């Protein structure tokens, strides 16, 4: 009997709590959870967007894995792109972070310049770089002419051999500044004592980097790699505004191909099967990330207020 008021108070507390969460939860369930489930269901249907849907079972997945000749190419492109931008962004981001962290004069200006591309829209960046690669007046060709390498002049985005590397370079230009900042956050966690101790023991700069800094940054490297790979599987804007997947599918990525199949060819069920496979890939990558990262308290109050700037 004495417990009654307490149970009531608990119930009331629960109800108030639910009221606070409900608005967010409603939008979230309708526009995120529901599409996640729907995507799976759609992938078992054949649908053109207008007429009736018809159930086809695993047919879409069978076509994807055995009949579609473009799909393996798209996967290969996406993986090549992923490897390219991981290597590029990690190395440039790390080099920049190490240099900026040294405490040189004017490092603030450098940081600002490096962080400009990450805030820009990928559409604008792609349009700008399409001009930079322009065969007639772009600065890449002008540069090769200036140093006497006229033979290297070419239409970078129209050549199947150079188009994908050209896109990788744009991605590194756009994102390495962001990965630099993440590495800077990591460098701040390394205490000066460790480095000083190594200095006393006579470790050279390169050795200190190889045996102390790099291992201590491991979790940041890991997170950078995860962020870049999720980005690679989501690449759409850049490809769509520069090459549209061409020439000859040389730069088609998963999402650009999904867009083509769903909204040009109108095979929406088939596109759903592809996105659902993509969804599972990205989900697994991110899940690994979460478990590794959660164990080290990714976001603390201190970091937010202090920032890394």
């Amino acid at each position, binding site marked *: 009997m004495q417990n009654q008021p307490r149970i009531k108070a608990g119930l009331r507390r629960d109800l108030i709590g639910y009221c606070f969460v409900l608005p967010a*939860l409603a939008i979230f369930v309708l526009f995120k959870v529901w599409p996640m489930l729907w995507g799976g269901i759609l992938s078992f249907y054949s649908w053109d967007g207008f007429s009736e849907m018809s159930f086809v079972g695993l047919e879409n997945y069978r076509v994807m894995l055995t009949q579609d000749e473009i799909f393996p190419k798209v996967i290969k492109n996406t993986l090549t792109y992923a490897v390219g931008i991981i290597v590029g962004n990690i190395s440039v981001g790390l080099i920049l972070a190490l240099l900026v962290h040294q405490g040189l004069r004017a490092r603030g200006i450098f940081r600002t310049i490096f962080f400009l591309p990450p805030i820009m829209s990928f559409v604008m960046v792609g349009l700008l770089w399409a001009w930079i690669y322009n065969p007639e007046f772009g600065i890449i060709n002008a540069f090769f002419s200036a140093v006497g390498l006229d033979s290297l002049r070419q239409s970078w985005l129209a050549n199947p051999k150079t188009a994908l590397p050209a896109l990788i370079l744009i991605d590194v230009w756009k994102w390495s500044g962001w990965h630099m900042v993440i590495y800077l956050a990591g460098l701040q966690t390394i205490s000066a004592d460790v480095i000083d101790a190594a200095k006393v023991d006579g470790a050279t700069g390169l050795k200190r980097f190889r045996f102390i800094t790099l291992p201590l940054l491991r979790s940041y490297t890991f997170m950078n790699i995860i962020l870049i790979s999720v980005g690679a599987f989501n690449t759409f804007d850049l490809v769509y505004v520069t090459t549209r997947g061409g020439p000859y599918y040389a730069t088609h990525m998963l999402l650009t191909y999904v*867009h083509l199949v769903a909204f040009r060819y109108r095979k929406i069920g088939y596109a759903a099967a592809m996105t659902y496979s993509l969804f599972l890939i990205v989900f697994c990558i991110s899940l690994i990330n979460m478990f590794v990262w959660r164990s080290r308290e990714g976001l603390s109050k201190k970091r937010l207020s202090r920032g890394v700037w």
Partner: protein
Amino acid sequence: MKRESGAFPIAGSYFVLLLFAFFMGFPIVWMVFNSLKTHDEVFTNIWGPPDVPQWINYPRAWEQANVGILFRNSLIVAGSSVVLITLLAALAAYGISKIRFRGNGVLFILFIIAMLVPQQILIVPLYRLMKSLGIINTHLSLIFPYVAGGLPLAIFILTTYFRGIPDDIVEAARIDGCSNIRILWNIVLPVSWPAISAVIIFEFLETWNEFFLALVFIQKIDLRTLPLGIFSFMGRYMIDYSLFFSVLSLSMLPVIIIFLIFQRRFVSGLTAGALVG
């Protein structure tokens, strides 16, 4: 001033930094240079600044690409999304961290897991959903998915931050008869500014720059957002090259200027977004 990790010689460091600064900065400078040239000068004077700056390019670009309408549309979409995300996330985060109803932990984990699924991947089912709701070709078809996509991260950042605020303060206010809404508004939010500004900046950049959903859901010309409008403008008119650069510069400058003013907040906002996945 030389710091502990000064592993490289100073001169070499400056040289490499300058090289990268040129690589990162020159494309932007080049864009602005070209935006002030005449059509012919884009071809004849490839590297340098314009001989006579053609300031007239900017009003022309503004008019021809309808930049005003594009800005308005993007402001409507990004603005309402960010306001909704921040508001709903603050309510939810307060509920999870300070009211601690039964099942708050489960809900929190659900949000975190969803954070890992980008909205772009859901394009096909979302398209179907927008069609059946009849809101395709309206700004609502962008705002709803943007809010749903932004909420998990916002809730995560705010919940983590709110948990760091001592419960004693909240309890004391409750005993004094403060309602939960007032506690949130008058006590919790004012001290959470770092987290809130991080959420606002991160979500604003995400929604302001979003292209894929806008491309699929918006066909009406006068509803286009900035990236979509600029992209279609570039694809359609192939006459005046310097005009392209003026349009590009015009559309990028506002974000760049805001960034230069609020640099610190931008960086902590974007890193906060990254450090949680």
